[in-house]
Every structure is written in C-alpha cells, then in structure tokens.
C-alpha cells in the first residue's frame, strides 16, 4: 500500500492529471501547491478545467502557459497587490487562449465543495442575493424549501477529477496531517475522485491525532515528498509567505514576454521544484 502511495511528484502528475480533466489545486493563502502547478506546466497539460476559490499566482502561471480552458473561481486577484495579469489577459484578450469563466462567490464555491464531498448533486445557500452574478452564471439557480416554500440559491456540486493539496506531513502509508489555516481543502479533497498531496516531510507513522486534521490513507491516492512545495505561499511552522515575491510577480506577469521568459527560466529551465528553489536562492 505504502509502496504505491508515496511516489515522485512527476509520476503522480503524469499518472493522474490528464489533458481535459477538472483539477483543483486548493490551499487558501496557506499551503498552495505551487510545486504541483509547476509540474503540470512542465508536463504541458492542456484543456484543464481549473477550480480554485482564489486562483492566486499558481493559476495565473498555469493560465498564462495555456494549460486551462475553463476556470471555476470566486476571487481572482493577487492578494494585497492587485491584478492577476495573466488571468486578465486571458479573459480580456483571449491570450494565450480564451478562458471560460464559471464565476461564483466564496460562499458558493465552499458550499459546492461540501456538496461534492457528500456526493450530493447540488448545494444550497442564502447567497448571490441582489447581484448580477446570478444572471451572469447559468450554473446559479434556485431551489424551494419543501417546508417553508422559501427560495434559496443552488449551485452544482463540485467534484474535481483530481484535487491537489500541500501539507506538512505524511507517513509511509499515505496518511496526511495538516495544521494551520485550512480553507476549503478538506472538502475539496473529499469531493475529488483522485487526491494528490505534496508534503514537507514524510515520517514512518503518524501518531493518533484525536481532533487534529488528518486525511486518512484510504482517501489519499498519491503522496509526493516536496519540501518547499508551497513556496511562495507558506507552510505553518516551516516557512513564511514570500510577500516580496507576490509583489515582484506583478511586474513579471504584466508583460507577456517577461512572463514567458520567467517561466522558461524558472519552470521549464528547472528539472523540479528543488531546482527552482535553488535557482531563486542563487539569484537572491
């Protein structure tokens, strides 16, 4: 069992992330799986339906490199900085290719992940009230309460073909321990057909964790050891968020050529995430 579950990241991606699939790389500010995103770019995946509450830099990079045909999201900015220029370029000018938007609110995506995790066909919420979003997105409908007659917003459940997370630790059987800010990661993980987790460290066996957050091995498809795998986002108790990188990204991503050059050097030009981090350290 363990032998199958703990694999190199490149193998996990090539085995499970196929062109055209619906893929969610989750992690809310904390634990964003950048290494996995870069590996998907390296393997030149295409036509992906990307799902993520906050696309962040990782999807700006994947969209800019032409991996995505569709995006389900609820907030698409560079946190604390401004725009995601590659996302904007794809939406505003169809570069490098047009991007379909399935746009929601945080509450809507969160509820849709929960419904997906429970294998319900839809989620309901008191949401999308008094906005143009409900008209702009045909996937926002309504449902009537069979007891009160009240109408509530309804969105389809989200069930990614593949969800990818980053976490602090896993053991050799594939149990994963997460702590700190968790966003909607557990729900996105439980909603998926395939769950890939990159981790900072792998231990022989995780101890009983009582009420701590654990993804048990029987819901985890593959674990990849990937120290620094969430950089430039952060990992509680391991490294902090590189806010300066998020600021630098604004200038890098603003121009198509600068962006392509950066990706060529830092992603295609690096064998893996360790090499990527080494290059950044050398440049620092």
């Amino acid at each position, binding site marked *: 069992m363990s032998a199958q579950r703990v694999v190199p990241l490149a193998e996990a991606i090539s085995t499970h992330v196929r062109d055209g699939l619906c893929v969610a790389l989750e992690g*809310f*500010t*904390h634990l964003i799986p950048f290494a996995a995103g870069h590996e998907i770019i390296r393997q030149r995946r295409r036509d992906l339906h990307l799902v993520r*509450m906050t696309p962040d830099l990782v999807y700006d990079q994947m969209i800019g490199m032409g991996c995505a045909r569709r995006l389900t*999201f*609820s*907030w*698409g*900015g560079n*946190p*604390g900085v401004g*725009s995601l220029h590659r*996302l*904007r370029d794809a*939406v*505003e000018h169809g570069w490098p290719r047009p991007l379909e938007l399935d*746009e929601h*609110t*945080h*509450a809507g995506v*969160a*509820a849709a*992940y929960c419904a997906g995790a429970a294998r319900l066909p839809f989620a309901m*919420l*008191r*949401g*999308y*009230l*008094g*906005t*143009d*979003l409900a008209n*702009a997105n045909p996937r926002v409908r309504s449902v009537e309460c069979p007891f009160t007659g*009240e*109408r509530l917003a309804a969105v389809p459940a989200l069930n990614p073909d593949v969800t990818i997370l980053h976490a602090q630790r896993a053991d050799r059987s594939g149990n994963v321990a997460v702590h*700190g*800010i*968790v*966003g*909607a990661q*557990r*729900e996105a993980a439980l909603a998926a057909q395939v769950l890939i987790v990159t981790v900072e460290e792998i231990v022989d066996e995780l101890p009983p964790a009582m009420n701590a957050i654990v993804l048990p091995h029987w819901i985890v498809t593959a674990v990849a050891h990937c*120290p*620094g795998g969430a*950089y430039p986002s*952060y*990992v*509680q108790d*391991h*490294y*902090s*968020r*590189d*806010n*300066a*990188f998020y600021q630098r990204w604004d200038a890098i991503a603003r121009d198509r050529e600068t962006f392509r050059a950066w990706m060529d050097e830092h992603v295609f030009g690096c064998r893996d995430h360790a090499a990527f*981090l080494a290059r*950044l*350290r050398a440049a*620092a």
Partner: protein
Amino acid sequence: MSDCTRDEMMTIAAARLLWDGCVCFVGIGLPSAACNLARLTHAPGIVLIYESGTLGTRPDVLPLSIGDGELAETAACVIPLPEVFAYLLQAGRVDVGFLGAAQLDRYGNLNSTVIGPYQAPSTRLPGAGGATEIAAHARRTFVMLKATPRSLVARLDFRTSAGFLDGRAARARTSMRGAGPQAVITDFGLLTPAPDTDELQLTALYPGATIADARAATGWPLAVAATVETLAPPTTLELDTLRALQARTREAHRRPVRLPA
C-alpha cells in the same frame, strides 16, 4: 490634520465606528488597519474574523494576506472556510462586515467584478470573493474606498454586492437579513443612508475637507444632510497607535524571507 494623511484619517474614522466586543468580518488593507486600531485603543474585546477561518485573532502586525501565519497563531481558533460562511456569516453571527469595491452607487451597491460588459470587459476585476454574502448577511456593513468620479458612479457596470438596491426599502423586501451599508468611509468624510430613501448622503467631513471636495469626488449629484458634522481630528493616542502599528508592520514585512531549503 496637517500631520495626518487621508489614509490615516479614513482608518481612524472607521475604527471609531467599532465598539468593544463587536464581531467583525475583516478584509485586508484599510479595514484590517481600522479593526486592529480599534482593538488596540477603545475596543480591546473586539472579535476579528478573517475569511481564512481565523477567529478572534490578535496579530501584532497587520497581515499582508487574508491568511498570514500570525493570524492563525494568535487566533482563539482556526476553522474551515465553509463554516465561516455557513455557520458564522450566513447564520447572522457577524455584527460588522467591511467592504471595498471599484465602484459604488448612490444606494451603496458595489461592483468588484468588471468594468465594461461582463462577457467582454475592458477591465476584469478580482470578483466577489466573500463580499456578496458579507453584504447580505453581516448585521451592518461599512464600505471603505477612495472617492473619485470613477469610483462613486451614477451607474454600476456590474452589481457584485447589494447595498440598498434601488432604495426606498427595496432591500428590506428581500431575504437579506443584514441592514446593509450603514456608512461609506471615503477620503473626504462619511456618507450614510437617508432614512426614507436609503440614498447615501454626506453626513460628516474630515477636518479641512469641504462639501465642494465631496461633490467634486462624486459621480452623481451628491445629497448633503441638513447638518454635516465635522469629525474630530485624530487624537494623539489614535495616531500614535496607528503609526506604531504601521511601523511594526513595515519592519516585520521588510525582513527577507528565508527560502525553504
């Protein structure tokens, strides 16, 4: 005022609207500064919730992201994001929600989605995030934004978050439970809804700001209240506390991050 920036005055004006013990849904930027200023001055018992799931957090410096590690380390607890929206916000347990936007109209409706048509926008903005449901369910909201004729507009390109809709109790006829925007904190002063029409009107100015400044910065014919209060200038405590907080924050974020090995 001479020695106080408009950003500082906005932050202090917002902080004064908060009370001890209020449960506050915080956004990044000025709202975060305002909420933490209130916590460090007159509202030590304020409960700060960031949508990342950190409840009752007490950061020593302002976070640059909604989910900085210090928010988690100093929080009473950290819960999953779906619970923040379902069990706290939707359940009506949030007293105050802060909102910002690219565009605001005279009824406090907000646009943070697109400039231009949705299908072919001239400018694609970040989108709703938590704003739509904060606007609907927080018991009251405060909006903070810099006033220009391009931000305070006669007509929104897209309505992302509901204020008073078309006014005249239109909001009260919906299933939204929150009272809507009770104050818009701009860089000239405060707009608040008129009781009968729900239309935003100028009710307070910062020291040194004029009604003419306000009108010039507003893209619709701005209604002015019968009496326009002039807000008290920042106290030494307010200003010193805010500047110390900002200094700590700059200092902390200046430290270079060690790349993971």
